């Protein structure tokens, strides 16, 4: 390892925090999806960093990072399909305007 | 509404149409190196080096014909062409000798190629078979008043040139002129022709 592990973890923590902030504050659903991608990415960095330093088998983390990427791709496709359907039905992409099920 | 009948596919095997199309372009590519223009090769003409073959009947701007020497043209400065020209692009002045007596040849003969519309009226009306339509086309100029105004010296071209560019017309005209001259000579054999120098060929 050329740089210490905690630094990498801090970096991915910051990335995760930024993503979470985006999820909490964005109104646009596509914006929320983008922020979720950031958070998943932070998880991927963590997996890789651990697989390089503390893992028992070096490939474990990479395998799970592959899974994370696959899941992220699915999130994007299904989420965006829902956004498009929503846009077609209600002419909006803002999360707080989709409040039909709100009490 | 009935659906339009689609023509039966000519190629039974999928993909042969594609290959046929590709063969057409490939043949063109190969032919462009090995075949002449009329056999399917390249027919582009490389302009400044080689010029277009112009058909005999092509016409554009008028010029004057002389027989023996440029200072004795067929033109008699009668001014018919000047009068008949629809765009008035011809300007003729008759030459005068030192005594002020008019000679039967032009002193000034100018055609404004910028005005000329290539109608060929001058050629039709000329009674002396002097003015004909030329086919030069590399006459671009930078100034439309100066460069397009063509003077007598540039307009005068020998009969040989006329025979070269329009051999059929030139032969007809020469034959007619010869016949007319012979008739004239036969009629006035005792006397010397008044303008022998001008029209003898």
């Amino acid at each position, binding site marked *: 390892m050329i740089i210490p592990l905690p630094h990498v973890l801090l970096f991915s923590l910051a990335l995760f925090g930024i993503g979470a902030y985006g999820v909490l504050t964005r109104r646009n659903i596509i914006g929320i999806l983008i922020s979720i991608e950031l958070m998943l990415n932070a998880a991927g960095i963590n997996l890789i960093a651990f697989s390089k330093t503390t893992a028992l088998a070096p490939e474990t983390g990479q395998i799970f990072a592959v899974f994370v990427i696959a899941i992220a791709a699915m999130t994007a496709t299904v989420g965006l399909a829902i956004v498009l359907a929503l846009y077609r039905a209600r002419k909006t992409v803002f999360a707080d305007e989709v409040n039909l099920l709100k009490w | 509404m009935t*659906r339009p009948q689609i023509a039966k596919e000519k190629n039974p095997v*999928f993909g042969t149409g594609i290959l046929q199309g590709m063969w057409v372009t490939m043949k063109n*590519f190969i*032919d462009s*190196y090995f075949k002449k223009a009329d056999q399917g090769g390249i027919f582009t003409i490389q302009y400044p080096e080689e010029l277009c073959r112009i058909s005999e009947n092509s016409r554009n701007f008028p010029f004057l014909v002389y027989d023996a020497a440029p200072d004795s043209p067929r033109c008699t400065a009668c001014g018919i062409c000047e009068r008949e020209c629809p765009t008035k692009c011809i300007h003729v002045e008759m030459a005068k000798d030192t005594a002020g007596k008019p000679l039967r040849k032009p002193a000034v003969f100018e055609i404004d190629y910028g005005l000329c519309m290539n109608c060929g009226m001058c050629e039709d009306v000329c009674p002396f078979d002097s003015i004909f339509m030329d086919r030069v086309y590399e006459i671009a100029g930078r100034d439309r008043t100066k460069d397009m105004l063509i003077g007598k010296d540039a307009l005068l071209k020998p009969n040989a040139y006329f025979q070269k560019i329009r051999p059929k017309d030139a032969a007809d005209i020469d034959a007619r002129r010869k016949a007319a001259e012979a008739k004239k000579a036969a009629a006035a054999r005792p006397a010397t022709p008044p303008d022998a120098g001008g029209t003898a060929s």
Partner: protein
Amino acid sequence: MNPAMSFLDSIFVNLKLWTLNLIGHFLPGWAVILASIVISGVVILCLGPVIMMYLTLLERKVVGRMQNRYGPNRVGPWGLLQPIADGIKMFTKEDIVPTNADKVIHLLAPIVIVVPALMVFLVVPFGRDMTAADLSIGVLYFIAVSSVTTLPIFMGSWASRNKYSMIGGMRTAAQMISYEVPMTLAVVPVIMMSQSLSTASIVNAQEGLRWFVFTPWGLAGFVIFFICTVAECNRPPFDLPEAESELVAGFHTEYSGMKFALFYMAEYMNAFTLSAIAVTLFLGGWQGPFLPSWVWFFTKTFALIFAMIWFRATFPRFRVDQLMGIAWKLLLPLTLVNMLVAGLWYFIPGITGWVGAAVILAVSFLGLTALNKPVIPEKRVYLLEN
């Protein structure tokens, strides 16, 4: 191989080693490493644009010949200086930015598009030991980097604020994503057989005349890969994103001068690198008898580029539904069958495997074409309302 040939074969490698030795005499070790990177980088950075310039000339000449014309032949002997004249023209043209354009992205798009186009050169094996960086994931690197090309096209089309650009960008997205799938899957059999992702070892696996294209799965894979290649670099007949007759110029409608030149450059460099990768994967790369390795490589690559130009001169443009149909309904299933066939061919030795593989491929191809009968759209009747 006689000594003269081996000298010619490794002339560029030796030149670089000699230069590095010279530098090693004067400078410390880290500078030599740096210089090694810089030399390869500079060669690639020069090679890319030069190849692009002469590809434009080649294309214009060949298309001209196919249309019974000469093509450019005025500037310099045989028009050899024409690309330079074009370059000067591009440099001196006015740079127009639309008023409503997103200025920053409009500027960034043509710059960004050149980066992946140049980066792909890194893994191209130009000859024996002539790969700039023999990455262990070479082929994947190539696929990954070339997939980024969609992004700058999107940037350009969106930032122009022009409906033609927008439609062009949308079409690009659909087309490039669709054709990436069969392209990647067509590579899989090659990776299965050579058991490596590195371009250099893939070429080494095709030693002698055992090029992958001479096997049933290799031929099918090559054809599929090449079709996808043509589609990936938006060349006719897959040039819907920049269809002149429908979309003016597609995503680069609003670009002029040097920015347009950069788009153009990226396109031609992509055409070159994609052909080069096709050669590497299926046509044996630099392998070949008698001639130096790099001569073989460039001969094969330019043969493929010639084929691309040939397509351009021959075929009319696809319709959008046909384009998508070919990618998803014909090429994708065929690549899946091809992977299976490659496995069978590997485990059934001798003539049985060959014939079996060929038969399976032919049958699945015919079956797929039969299933994909061209749809004749219903004739539309527009009733006038009264």
